[in-house]
């Protein structure tokens, strides 16, 4: 019978014979016909990614790249529901022990097998890390039993699978930090090259969730805001995150569709330690916070939704809407706070503040951030402080931020976790206050105290939550955004009508 099937088809010229949560606008596919494989696509990132290391994720671009190159134990579907990814099933909880079985037959990009030992070592590395350890603060021990990872909990954790779906917990071989230019992951794409302004990736045939439909992917970033839409407009890219055309009224070369994510990406002002007495002062931070003209931030960018905020929790995830009184500068509040700060920080005294010059760092590959920084400089000017803006590479920004060798910087934080406690914890972790981050993530600080604690310490100053809007060629199908505004690149396919 099978042979008949094969021979018959061969005669027919067949060659060799046959025989909704926040994840929005998913186009997971099942029938009609199926998505075809193939195609080399040029896309863009929201900035230059720094290091391809899950633990070093500090921006939307970092999270996007890590999500393509690495895998997590769990994943979040378009409907917002967590499902097993590298794990074979949801965690089995018995008292304080959690058992997670790893799927059989998994491979890293170098062909080596991915097993429970890699998962255990990775989670142990995350726990020990300063940057992301707060995520796993409720895990007191990580052990491996055959192909099962056994976690010991210090307190019950209903959202464990959700935590293990975040970029920071992506699995690396033997839990080691990936090589900067040749990271080995198990994600849908393999990094095959890095140039000054782009990453080159190739589909990984043995990805656990299926081979991506695209063959090759080139992900670019730009230092000039108009370069990205111009490239797209002229047909040089398959999608743009900064508009479809350079000038209003123009038309892109190819038919275009657009899609926008929820506004969950936090753009914030972070603090370094170059002027430690000034920058560590809560009153100074409060003065700057009050002097900001947040209402004007709605116009930053290229038309995507921007929601000014003073809270790390996005309105789209149930966070508080910005009160009208806070949207515009409150100079009386700012001056009062500055006066309090000046009582303990000599450099902020009226007779010395004009000698203070602060530097605001921005990544040169995130042109919108320069406009944000300009508004920060204006706010500082209202306080009587001079400031300059320095645009540096994303790598330099990351290095100076992590070493504290800066005054202020404009940062981006993806909302990979939707729970308010975890978003507050993330804000404290970004601000370098790991102890408070642990308390928030561990459930020690809850309810209204979370917001009070945040307001009292201001580890960062939230500016606005933005959406990511993609304009893409109409023949590029399958586009969707996850809850943290990452584009589902692995589901994209090229559809050419026959």
């Amino acid at each position, binding site marked *: 019978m099978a042979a008949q099937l*094969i021979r018959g088809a061969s005669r027919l010229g067949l060659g*060799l014979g046959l025989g909704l949560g926040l994840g929005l606008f998913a186009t997971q596919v099942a029938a009609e016909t199926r998505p075809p494989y193939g195609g080399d696509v040029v896309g863009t990132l929201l900035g230059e990614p720094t290091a391809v290391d899950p633990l070093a994720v500090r921006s939307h671009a970092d999270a996007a790249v890590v999500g393509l190159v690495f895998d997590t134990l769990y994943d979040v579907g378009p409907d917002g529901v967590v499902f097993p990814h590298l794990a074979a099933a949801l965690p089995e909880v018995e008292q304080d022990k959690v058992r997670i079985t790893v799927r059989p037959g998994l491979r890293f990009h170098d062909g080596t097998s991915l097993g429970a030992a890699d998962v255990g070592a990775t989670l142990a590395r995350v726990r020990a890390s300063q940057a992301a350890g707060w995520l796993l603060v409720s895990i007191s021990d990580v052990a491996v039993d055959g192909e099962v990872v056994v976690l010991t909990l210090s307190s019950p954790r209903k959202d464990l699978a959700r935590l293990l779906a975040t970029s920071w917990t992506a699995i690396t071989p033997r839990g080691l930090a990936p090589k900067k230019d040749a990271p080995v992951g198990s994600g849908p794409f393999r990094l095959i090259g890095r140039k000054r302004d782009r990453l080159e990736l190739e589909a990984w045939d043995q990805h656990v969730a299926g081979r*991506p439909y695209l063959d090759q992917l080139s992900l670019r970033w730009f230092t000039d805001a108009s370069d990205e839409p111009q490239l797209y407009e002229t047909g040089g890219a398959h999608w743009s995150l900064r508009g479809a055309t350079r000038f209003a009224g123009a038309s892109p070369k190819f038919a275009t569709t657009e899609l926008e994510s929820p506004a969950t990406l936090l753009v914030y002002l972070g603090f370094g330690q170059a002027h430690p007495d000034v920058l560590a002062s809560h009153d100074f931070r409060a003065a700057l916070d009050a002097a900001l003209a947040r209402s004007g931030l709605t116009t930053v960018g290229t038309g995507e939704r921007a929601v000014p905020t003073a809270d790390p929790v996005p309105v789209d995830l149930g966070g508080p809407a910005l009160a009208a009184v806070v949207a515009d500068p409150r100079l009386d509040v700012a001056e009062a706070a500055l006066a309090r700060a000046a009582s303990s920080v000599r450099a902020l005294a009226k007779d010395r503040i004009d000698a203070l010059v602060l530097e605001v760092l921005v990544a040169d590959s995130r042109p919108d951030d320069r406009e944000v920084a300009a508004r920060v400089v204006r706010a500082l000017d209202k306080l009587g402080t001079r400031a300059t803006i320095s645009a540096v590479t994303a790598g330099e920004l990351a290095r100076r931020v992590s070493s504290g060798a800066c005054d202020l910087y404009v940062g981006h934080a993806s909302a990979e976790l939707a729970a308010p406690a975890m978003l507050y914890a993330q804000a404290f972790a970004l601000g370098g206050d790991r102890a408070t981050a642990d308390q928030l993530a561990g459930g020690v600080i809850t309810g209204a105290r979370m917001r009070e604690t945040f307001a009292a310490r201001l580890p960062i100053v939230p500016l606005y939550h933005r959406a990511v809007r993609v304009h893409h060629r109409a023949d590029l199908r399958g586009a969707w955004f996850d809850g943290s505004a990452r584009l589902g690149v692995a589901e994209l396919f090229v559809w050419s009508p026959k």
Partner: protein
Amino acid sequence: MAAAAVAASIVEVAAARPPAPFAPTPAPEGGGGPGALWRTVAAAFDVASAEREPAPLPPVAVKVTWKAKRVASLDLGAPLLALAAGDLDGDGKAELVALTERHVVVLRPHAKSLAEVARSALPSDPASIRPRDAVGTLVIARRADGPGEILARASTRGRGARWVLDGNALREVGPLLAFPLCGDVAADLVLGRNYFAAGGDGKEAASTFYGVRCRDDVVDRAGRGVRAQATVETGGGLAISLDTRCPARDAACPARRDLRLDRVGVALELDDVDRDGTIEVIVSGAGAPGDPDAVVVWNIGDAGFGRKPVFRRAFSGGVVGIGSGDVDGDGDRDVFAAVRLVGARKVDLWLLN
């Protein structure tokens, strides 16, 4: 043709054969040499009897009016992957069976709609590497000892299974490692991809296809059995082969015919719906997932496909499955199409005739 390569990718499974039409020949023990000879001859008769099936009767044509009517709107609990119809309980009426990413669901008529009568979770074995878009195949195979059984596998699980309907419960009766394509043919997906492959060796590439549908209970106007098999190629072509069981002295009998349709989607069904001895090919469109879809009915006459389809109905959603069987027991074939929006758990079931 590299038969070995074919065997590597397509598996022929044990065919379910109907019972022999004659009672076993009496062959008592004893009787010495003549008795042994009698038993040998009796056994040979029995083998010959088993090989012989009752001669099929030419069908009697019925009038079919093609008109789409939505008969049910159901939340199946997970996205639907495949649909088929067949008699699972031996009452002469077909059940409608749906394969989702998580379950096998049996549906029967209820009032003027359809209602779920049985459901079974798919095997829990985790899939190691699965295609990015879920793929499922579903066959209702006739069993030698009674009503049909369900053969199904979804790519969301590490294996498939066979089920029988026990009262109002589905009982798993065995595992399936490959994806069932027809009652006696199964295949494996290409690793991590949404299609199957067959053939291929060092010189030629393998042919790739999304699925196969078979029908082996059709009788032509001359009373000859016909087996139809349709293969949906990944390029959107549909290759159809019709194998007629020609009597030895019927020189005019066309033993095999090959036909093609283009721009065909994954969901399709083959059946002689109007009982005129020719086969209707009921297909979905080859649009992109998410685009509006259509069901088109073509008739295969003596000269091949007609110039125009017998019926065409457009849908705003995608057609994910088509199944045909005598679901209401009135002697006519009932053709159903399952329509849904991409990713949705809810499907609309349309009766097309």
